[in-house]
């Protein structure tokens, strides 16, 4: 990643302009052609720095207002299996393995579910529980969102460029 890549990522963070040739438009401010911009994006994707290039959508504005974090204590096998099982469900948007707090909070796996209603989310979660056999879980519905921004923000929380 060179300084031009860093500038490019900072520009792209604002979102692509909604004009017919958006990469060309972005390139103007950086002294790059549209093709050069696309080539750099392609390389950043190959390097794994850009995971995906896509729309970020406010699902609540589309009526999808229910959101639950579910903490699981999977039964049985352990290792990578429970995480893979949970992640396989299309209704699961995120799946993480986390270190528990022994004696106070034994859950090790976390999934995130979104839906049009709490009922719909609970149905999804119950289906996951039934099909995996993981019966020990807690559903944490969100009641207020105080902050929701991308994990990685070039202008805010990326300091040293590796």
């Amino acid at each position, binding site marked *: 990643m060179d300084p031009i890549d860093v500038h490019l990522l900072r520009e792209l963070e604002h979102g692509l302009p*909604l004009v017919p040739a958006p990469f060309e438009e972005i390139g103007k401010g950086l002294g790059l052609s549209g093709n050069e911009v*696309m080539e750099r994006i392609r390389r950043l994707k190959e390097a794994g*720095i850009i995971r995906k290039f896509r729309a970020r959508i406010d699902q609540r504005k589309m009526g*999808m207002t229910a959101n639950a974090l579910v903490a699981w204590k999977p039964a049985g096998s352990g290792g990578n299996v429970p995480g893979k099982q949970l992640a396989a469900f299309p209704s699961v948007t995120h*799946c993480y393995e986390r270190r528990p707090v022994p004696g106070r909070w034994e859950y090790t796996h976390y999934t995130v579910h979104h839906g049009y209603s*709490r009922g719909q989310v609970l149905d999804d979660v119950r289906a996951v529980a039934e099909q995996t056999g993981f019966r020990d879980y807690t559903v944490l519905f969100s009641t207020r969102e105080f902050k929701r921004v991308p994990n990685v923000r070039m202008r805010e929380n990326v300091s040293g460029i590796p």
Partner: protein
Amino acid sequence: MSTPSLPDQTDLAILNALQDDLPLVSRPWKAIAERMGITETDIISRMNRLKDTGIIRAISPILESRHLGLHAATLVALHVPEERMDKIAAVISSYAEVSHNFERDHYYSLWFTLAAQNEEGIQRVLHEILQQTGIPESDVLDLPTIKKIKIDVRFSFLPAQIRENTDGPD
């Protein structure tokens, strides 16, 4: 199109398509529009409308944290007394290291994610937050990330009439 301000079927198809990886071609909107059988002009004007209403936040790259120097992350849960929630949540949200900060329906009522260059960075911020807010250690769950197994936010938007049939009891 009796209610042009509400997302119609074509808008839903656009929103579903824009959640896929964007085609890296000089006219990406045209490429998506052609697949859907609409014009470039139409997709651009619809995207502008969806952006104006705040439904589309941005079409931008999703970056991989560990390739950008963020090597440690955790999820923290706090038991926060109801009457102190707004103030404490505001303190936590003010940190650049915090990306998500939600109130949840549980004894542990405030849940936030922290990312930093390393474990020490995380502990420094967490310690500062606890000092500032006066939350005792016994009301804190620190749940460091061991493994990201899936991070693929993708919403399948349904037309309102179908949505009603999939609704469970609320």
